[in-house]
């Protein structure tokens, strides 16, 4: 398993000095969180409350990329491949927590929520999954395939004007993935794929809350371009493995299998999907 660099770094760079108007400094008695390497390798910052990093025996593999970059398709295929290789697989994704997943759906449908509240609801959803789904799986040696991770959540917040440093701090207790793939596609390609899927573009996919354009197409393109830029900012610091999402499904899948195979010690990474998933293999 290739461990990401153990150096403690913020998730996203922020050249902002701490303002003199901070309500109060953190109590002086506070000890730095990551005193040993185990913690720093496992978490971005603070360790999760009541958790011992040495318990992790599984692998956390993250797929990031904008709407229409092919993440879900690739995850379905990877799950089948890994299971055929004998690995237990757990998946996670945004808004899938038992705690607030449905509440977020309702908030999005009503569109009556401010950016910060929505951001914190997503954070709640994220950590509920970390504690109830991802960690238990990693403790039992399972491979966790995450459909999006904190990077999407940070990017969405930053483009809406939420302080980058604030968001990095918020997700400091997130586990560092063992592998983070970034399926990078042009927003124009993503638009075509998304439109084909649903014959429509949703309010949030197009970032319509941001009043970027009255024109749905341009709103989508501008919004996704902003998100893409944020990914570029985060890519280097977080060892993203960038893949060309414009390539065919089998081609992208092959690259994913190679990297994951290396990490998990699977030598032969040949795979062709079963009949059930054949329709994805285009």
């Amino acid at each position: 398993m290739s461990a990401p660099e153990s150096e403690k770094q913020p998730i996203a760079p922020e050249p902002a000095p701490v303002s003199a108007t901070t309500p109060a400094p953190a109590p002086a008695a506070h000890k730095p969180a990551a005193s040993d390497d185990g913690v720093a390798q496992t978490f971005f910052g603070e360790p999760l409350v009541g958790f011992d990093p040495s318990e992790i025996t599984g692998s956390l593999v993250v797929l990031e990329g904008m709407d229409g970059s092919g993440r879900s398709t690739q995850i379905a295929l990877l799950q089948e491949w890994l299971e055929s290789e004998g690995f237990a697989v757990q998946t996670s994704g945004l808004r899938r927590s038992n705690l607030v997943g449905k509440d977020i759906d309702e908030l999005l449908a009503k569109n009556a929520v401010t950016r910060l509240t929505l951001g914190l609801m997503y954070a709640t959803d994220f950590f509920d999954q970390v504690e109830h789904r991802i960690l238990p799986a990693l403790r039992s040696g399972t491979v966790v395939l995450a459909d999006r991770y904190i990077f999407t959540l940070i990017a969405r917040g930053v483009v809406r004007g939420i302080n980058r440093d604030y968001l990095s701090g918020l997700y400091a207790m997130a586990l560092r993935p063992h592998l983070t793939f970034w399926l990078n596609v042009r927003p124009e390609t993503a638009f075509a794929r998304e439109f084909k899927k649903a014959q429509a573009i949703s309010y949030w996919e197009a970032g319509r809350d941001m009043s970027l354009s009255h024109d749905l197409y341009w709103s989508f393109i501008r919004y996704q371009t902003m998100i893409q830029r944020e990914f570029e900012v985060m890519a280097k610091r977080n060892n993203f493995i960038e893949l060309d999402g414009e390539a065919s499904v089998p081609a992208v899948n092959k690259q994913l299998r190679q990297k994951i195979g290396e990490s998990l010690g699977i030598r032969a990474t040949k795979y062709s999907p079963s009949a059930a998933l054949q329709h994805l293999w285009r």
Partner: protein
Amino acid sequence: MEAQETVQKPQRTETTKSTLPQPGRPIPSRAYPGALIVVEGTDGSGKSTQLYLLKRWLEIGGYRLHFTEWNSSPLVKSATRRGKQRRLLTPVTFSLLHAADFADRCERQIMPLLQGDYLVLADRYIYTAFARDAARGCPPRWLRNLYRFAPVPDITFYFRAPLEVAVDRILSGRPRLKYYEAGMDLGLSFDRAESFKLFQARILEEYDKMVESDNFVVLDGTLPVNKLQKQMRAIVAEKIDLNRFAPRLEVAE
């Protein structure tokens, strides 16, 4: 009790762009024209009674004010109920859910009202989260960052009552303590009353740590109600230019 300087407030003016710092940066009290008064303290410290009396005093005087409570928005009510019933909440998600709830109140009520030159009274504020969540084991630095979007109060009253007094007030008035209220999730004791005591002791300790760093105005929660209220009113009148919020007398005879 330390005398705080009266903060120079800006005029309420219309601007095309928000003059407030972006979310994630603290909003100093001089950034908004309104005034924010906060009460904090452990359960049973008498803070809610005192804030209610302060509110009545100001209401009767006709001042422009808004009252807000911790954990009151319908936004997260169903999630909190679900989390509590099924005991899904961990220290981190408990903390985040309250932060989301507070952010909603902050962005939709507290900040607009402070910008609109209102007097805002808050029964519990971010310090409740700092004390309670730190008592549950959340890292203080993470908590401080989490609430960095909150406006800094003009006055924070901290009602301090000895642990026994506060605990007695709660235990005698309530038939059964709830699971999270008693801090049962911490596994301090199997007995709810005992667990509640231990949990409250931790919270009290966390509050005491903030007295200096967060400019708390400490009041003695064991004093008679009317005496305490007199102190509180005097401090408010001294530190806040109440005339700003007085009814505008337009019709003079």
